[in-house]
């Protein structure tokens, strides 16, 4: 077998080949072997294989030993660690040989160092893993699918998983994703079209993951034989992308809804870019927009232009962000107020390169502001010049502002008022009602409540006012202050009081007149009815004596009638026009005058008279009335004296405020006031069995006292005595 040709071929083979006998001694070897695997570069024929071989894994040694005993062994790549720690891959094939087969007993050994190739492959796998890019292969001839480890990892399948084409497709999410990949793959097979797509797969563990699948087609004889491609996990990136898209969309909707226009201005390209809202706000046709800054600046109202362009320049230079309000003139000639803000974006060197910003229409806001401004002015004007008092008060009722009318009504200056609370000058009797009114306004928010209360003027007088309050709320709905209207009705109340007093006087006068009318009617009627009756009797009576008797009675009735009329005349005299005749009269003088005139009567009864009236006491009175009153009271005291005691009369006077009280005390019969109290001063009321009792004296006395704006009263005890009190105006 050892021919020259074969030997030469073996020697020159590009592979490392060794032929050994059963004792593992070299029969022959290629040059490559000695070069790559033998440590001995001299002749190694007939020497043992393992004497000169480089470090090999034990598996190789076993394989060789078994090989010479007749067992073939192939290893496509064995990784092992050299003593110095380096990694090495060896690939071998051992073919046993016998005399019968190849003319010798032993084995042929092919050995190859594949370390470099393997290292590259390992690196590739690592790269795949790190980049999460896997590879896949579809062999259309054998109809097999091959996935790399990373591809399997992405699908979350076991490392030994081998998919079919259908299984591979079914990992894609049902619906549009699966339909799309099916279409792309079949299109690639049929048309040879490569694809690159982003789709969702559902992994073996049921997770949804975004992937990018790329496919290239290998064509042989115009027919696709293999699809190869990459398979990349882009889930994180895709999700961020989708989220970004969503936010962008949302922003777009927001700016649209809020009617905020946004823009970009590329400072490098000098190009202005607007969104649709901008075109709407500025009322410019999108198609006619020139993208130059001038397209925007030309809309600005001349009054604002200089200011706005200066601000824009500052912004472009990056000195200050744009934040301005300005008016623009629209195509149709109307004006719009715009609020604009911007940010300037710089490159890494700090050079401004872009501006981005937003604009919105504040016309309505502006007009509302104008309106507010005007109504504030109007309110201030109204407030200050209102004829009605007006004030702003805090919810704690502290004065915050007061107008002239109010300060006039209360007598305090505004400055003085602002240091006080409304409650400080409220009449104490009105405090509880004021508090409950405040609650209704501040807590319950009642807007149209009116309330009448009293304040104290600085000079101490009472001020009557009708208060109307309107609570003003801040943005949080809390009452910030109260606008109070203050209608001063003091004059009205005073007038009303006077009127009421007048009505009272009129009422009592009317009442007394009614009484008087009935008294008159009664008295006149009793006499006239007597006369009627008597006259009838007289007509029928025949007996002369009886006729004389009746005649006598008629005469008496007539006399009584004229007496009554005389009394009435006296009363009417008193009732009319006494006030004009009032004079200042000394009480003491009048008393002395009267006691002198009835001195005879007093002495007749051995009357003890005590007069305790200061000379200085003067009253406003009609002289004749005062005399008549004193006379009547004194004669009554004598007339109704006690039969058991000698009369004892005491006359006193004392000052009570604006009045003087004169009292006449006696020790006479007295009168049962429980019985007669309310009729004592009535006309024709008599209470004693006295022959002179007519029931007219005290009635006239009372009328005389009252006609001089005085009062008369009585205190009495039966069988002890009577005191008459007369109160008259002091002079």
């Amino acid at each position, binding site marked *: 077998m050892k021919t020259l040709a074969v030997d030469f071929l073996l020697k020159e083979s590009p592979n490392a080949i060794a032929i050994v006998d059963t004792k593992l001694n070299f029969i022959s070897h290629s040059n490559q072997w000695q070069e790559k695997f033998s440590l001995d570069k001299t002749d190694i024929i007939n020497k043992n294989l393992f004497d000169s071989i480089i470090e090999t894994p034990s598996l190789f040694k076993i394989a060789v030993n078994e090989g010479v005993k007749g067992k073939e062994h192939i290893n496509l790549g064995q990784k092992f660690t050299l003593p110095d720690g380096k990694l090495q891959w060896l690939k071998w094939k051992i073919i046993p040989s016998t005399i019968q087969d190849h003319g010798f007993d032993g084995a042929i050994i092919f050995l190859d160092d594949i370390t470099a190739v393997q290292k590259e492959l390992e690196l590739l796998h690592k790269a795949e893993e790190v980049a999460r890019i896997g590879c896949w292969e579809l062999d259309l001839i054998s109809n097999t699918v091959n996935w790399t480890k990373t591809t399997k990892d992405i699908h979350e399948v076991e490392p030994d998983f081998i998919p079919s084409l259908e299984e591979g497709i079914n990992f894609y999410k049902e619906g549009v994703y699966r339909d799309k990949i099916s279409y792309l793959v079949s299109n690639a097979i049929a048309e040879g079209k490569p694809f690159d797509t982003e789709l969702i797969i559902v992994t073996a563990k049921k997770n949804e993951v975004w992937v990018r699948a790329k496919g290239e087609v290998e064509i042989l004889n115009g027919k696709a034989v293999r699809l190869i491609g990459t398979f990349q996990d882009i889930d994180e990136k895709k999700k961020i992308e989708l989220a970004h898209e969503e936010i962008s969309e949302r922003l777009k909707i927001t700016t649209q809804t809020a009617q905020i226009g946004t823009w970009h201005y590329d400072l490098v390209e000098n190009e202005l870019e607007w969104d649709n809202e901008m075109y709407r706000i500025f009322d410019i046709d999108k198609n006619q927009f020139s993208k130059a800054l001038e397209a925007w600046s030309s809309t600005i109202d001349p009054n604002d232009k200089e200011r706005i362009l200066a601000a824009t320049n500052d912004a472009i230079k990056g000195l200050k962000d744009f934040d301005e309000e300005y008016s623009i003139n629209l195509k149709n000639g109307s004006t719009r107020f715009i609020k604009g803000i911007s940010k300037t974006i710089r490159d890494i060197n700090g050079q401004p390169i872009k501006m981005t910003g937003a604009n919105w229409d504040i016309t309505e806001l502006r007009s509302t502001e104008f309106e507010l401004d005007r109504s504030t002015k109007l309110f201030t004007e109204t407030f200050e010049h209102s004829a009605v008092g007006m004030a702003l008060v805090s919810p704690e009722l502290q004065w915050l502002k007061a107008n002239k009318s109010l300060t006039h009504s209360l007598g305090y200056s505004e400055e003085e008022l602002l240091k006080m609370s409304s409650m400080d000058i409220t009449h104490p009797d009105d405090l509880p009602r004021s508090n409950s009114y405040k609650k209704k306004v501040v807590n319950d928010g009642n807007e149209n409540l009116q309330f009448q209360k009293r304040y104290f003027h600085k000079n101490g007088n009472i001020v009557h006012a009708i208060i109307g309050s309107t609570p003003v709320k801040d943005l949080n709905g809390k009452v910030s202050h109260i606008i109070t209207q203050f209608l001063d009705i003091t004059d009205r109340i005073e007038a009303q009081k006077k009127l009421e007093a007048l009505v009272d006087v009129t009422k009592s006068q009317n009442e007394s007149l009614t009484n008087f009318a*009935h008294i008159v009617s*009664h008295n006149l*009627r009793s006499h006239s*009815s007597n006369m009627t*009756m008597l006259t009838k*009797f007289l007509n029928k009576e025949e007996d002369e004596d009886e006729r004389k008797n009746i005649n006598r*009675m008629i005469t008496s009735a007539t006399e009584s009638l004229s007496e009554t009329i005389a009394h009435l005349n006296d009363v009417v005299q008193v009732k009319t026009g006494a006030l004009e005749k009032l004079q200042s009269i000394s009480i003491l003088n009048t008393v002395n005058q009267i006691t002198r005139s009835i001195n005879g009567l007093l002495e007749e009864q051995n009357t003890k008279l005590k007069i305790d009236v200061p000379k200085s006491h003067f009253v406003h009175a009609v002289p004749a009335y005062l005399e008549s009153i004193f006379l009547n009271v004194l004669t009554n005291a004598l007339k109704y004296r006690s039969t058991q005691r000698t009369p004892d009369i005491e006359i006193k006077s004392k000052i009570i405020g604006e009045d003087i009280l004169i009292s006449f005390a006696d020790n006479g019969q007295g009168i049962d006031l429980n019985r007669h109290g309310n009729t004592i001063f009535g006309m024709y*009321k008599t209470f*004693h069995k006295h022959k002179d009792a007519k029931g007219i004296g005290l009635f006239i006395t009372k009328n005389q006292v009252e006609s001089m704006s005085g009062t008369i009263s009585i205190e009495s005890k039966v069988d002890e005595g009577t005191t008459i009190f007369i109160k008259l105006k002091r002079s």
Partner: protein
Amino acid sequence: MNKVQTCCIIDDDPIFVYGTKRIIKEVDFATSILVYSNGQEALDGLTKLCMAREPLPEVIFLDLNMPILNGWEFLDEFKNCKSKRSKKIIIYIISSSVDPRDLERVKNYEQVDTYILKPITPNDLAKILGTITEN
């Protein structure tokens, strides 16, 4: 029986008393007549009769305006009288007053039958007699 046994006049006006007495006789209204000149006198007199168990008047003609104790005061006192016999007495107010307040006030007294305006006439007495004998 068609006339009143005893009739009582309470009035301070002698002329009225004279006239009334005369008319009573004229229409034969009562057998006997009692006269008091004011409320107090009447109250005292009637009480005395009551205590003595003597017959009380069946009818009283009462004036309102009188000294000492007037008609109203008399009525107030009379109301308090505990005697059952007194309850049977019918009272007629006879007054000159046309004051509506007086006419109204009369309604507060159950025992008062009618308010008669002076002067009293034979007709008035005949009517009263009619109602009394009817009952």
